[in-house]
């Protein structure tokens, strides 16, 4: 009996000490790309695989290099050392692009049909006009919006091998899809390296939770507090709202999420979050697209795609489509 007591005390004390002192994860350093900071947390124990610190650091280097490469080629504000960015494509109207850039452009163009036109990667000029307007706190000219919208609607691309040509006068902007695209790359990369339990957040607008439960907090865009806290596993969450780029003029809020049919900021909702176990690039684009859809439209859309959505309305009520 005495031995049993001592053994029990030893086991329980060990458990308490272990629970207090052992970190079960590696917190990787932030990576600053896409106008945000990417945070990555990897679990040490992944099913049958134990991740070492050295391996975690190596994964960090690979991921960091990849994200920086993606950032350089998808930048529509500036060129890069190889002059092969979206900025270069928009300036010269044709480009011998890297395979990666060709893939992202094709991915984005396919989304036009996929979202019934609610996602349009040719809104580059209008996006810049509104970003400048928000910075200067001054509404852009209505005629200019109309003119640029017409150009965006008539624009497409021609791709022959790696030669990309813009047909029309609109500009390409991949901002609505690149974070999700990068997140999907990271997910595949980690999974292929037997790291299945992790949390990756791309500035909270695109988050992916791997094979262990974690909390994703969806915050109110313009006030303190939360819309919802989700406990998720093997799920991505993409959120669109005007939180980081907006202005209020005469009591009306204008932000950077444009309705591709009107050229003006979408005014339907305060915030849209989509949740699913599908390609994270799609989730990212879908959250942008849904922002311009009516309730009836997004209900049908989400059901057809098998994704969940949480929508914050202007009156602070919340609509949910969850499974």
């Amino acid at each position, binding site marked *: *009996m005495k031995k*049993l*007591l001592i053994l*029990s*005390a030893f*086991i*329980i004390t060990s*458990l*308490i000490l*272990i*629970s*207090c002192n*052992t*970190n*079960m*994860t*590696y*917190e990787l*350093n*932030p*990576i*600053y790309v896409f*106008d*945000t*900071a990417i*945070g990555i*947390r990897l*679990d040490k124990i992944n099913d049958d695989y134990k991740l070492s610190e050295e391996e975690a650091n190596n994964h960090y280097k690979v991921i960091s290099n990849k994200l920086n490469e993606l950032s350089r080629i998808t930048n529509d504000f500036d060129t890069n050392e190889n002059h092969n960015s979206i900025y270069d494509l928009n300036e010269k109207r044709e480009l011998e692009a890297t395979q990666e850039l060709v893939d992202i452009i094709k991915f984005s163009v396919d989304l036009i049909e996929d979202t019934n036109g609610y996602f349009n990667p040719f809104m580059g000029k209008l996006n810049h006009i509104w970003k400048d307007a928000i910075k200067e706190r001054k509404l852009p000219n209505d005629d200019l919006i109309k003119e640029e919208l017409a150009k965006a609607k008539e624009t497409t691309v021609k791709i022959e091998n790696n030669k990309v040509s813009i047909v029309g006068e609109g500009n390409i902007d991949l901002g609505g899809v690149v974070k999700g695209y990068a997140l999907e790359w990271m997910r595949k990369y980690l999974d292929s390296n037997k790291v299945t339990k992790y*949390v990756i*957040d791309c*500035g*909270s607008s695109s*988050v992916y939770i791997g094979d*262990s*439960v*974690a*909390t*994703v*907090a969806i*915050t109110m865009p313009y006030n*303190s*507090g939360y819309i919802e*806290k989700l406990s998720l596993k093997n799920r991505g969450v993409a959120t669109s709202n005007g939180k*980081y780029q907006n202005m209020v003029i005469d009591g009306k809020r204008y932000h950077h999420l444009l309705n591709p049919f009107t050229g003006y900021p979408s005014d339907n909702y305060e915030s849209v979050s989509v949740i699913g176990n599908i390609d994270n690039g799609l989730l990212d684009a879908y959250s942008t697209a849904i922002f311009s859809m009516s309730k009836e439209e997004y209900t049908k859309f989400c059901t057809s795609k098998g994704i969940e959505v949480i929508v914050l309305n202007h009156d602070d009520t919340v609509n949910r489509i969850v499974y």
Partner: protein
Amino acid sequence: MILLKRSNDIILITLLLAGIIALFVFFFVRNNNGDAPYVNIYKEDKILYSVPLEKNDTIEVTGDVSKMVIVIRNGRVHVEYSGCDNQICVHEGEKSEFNEMITCLPNKIYIRIGSKVDVKG
């Protein structure tokens, strides 16, 4: 003899209950990994501070454009002051959940609630 045996049983049961409670805390009350939440503050990719979220503290850091004052109080963290133009970091408000973060891009300061990080140097 019977009394002694009963008191041993009570001790054993108490120890077992304590162990169960410890495991409960490990798996459910902390984050899902069992790690205690820390406020990790980085300047670019260098960790500056890793402090327990449960410990009230005020931390001043120097970013690329200004100083920032970060306050941890009652299990929440927020940016009290930043000299950056856009004030996005200040308007983020209070964060309290694992994985939540506040970024000040002009200052290259990144604050994230996560597991403890070793601060070297």
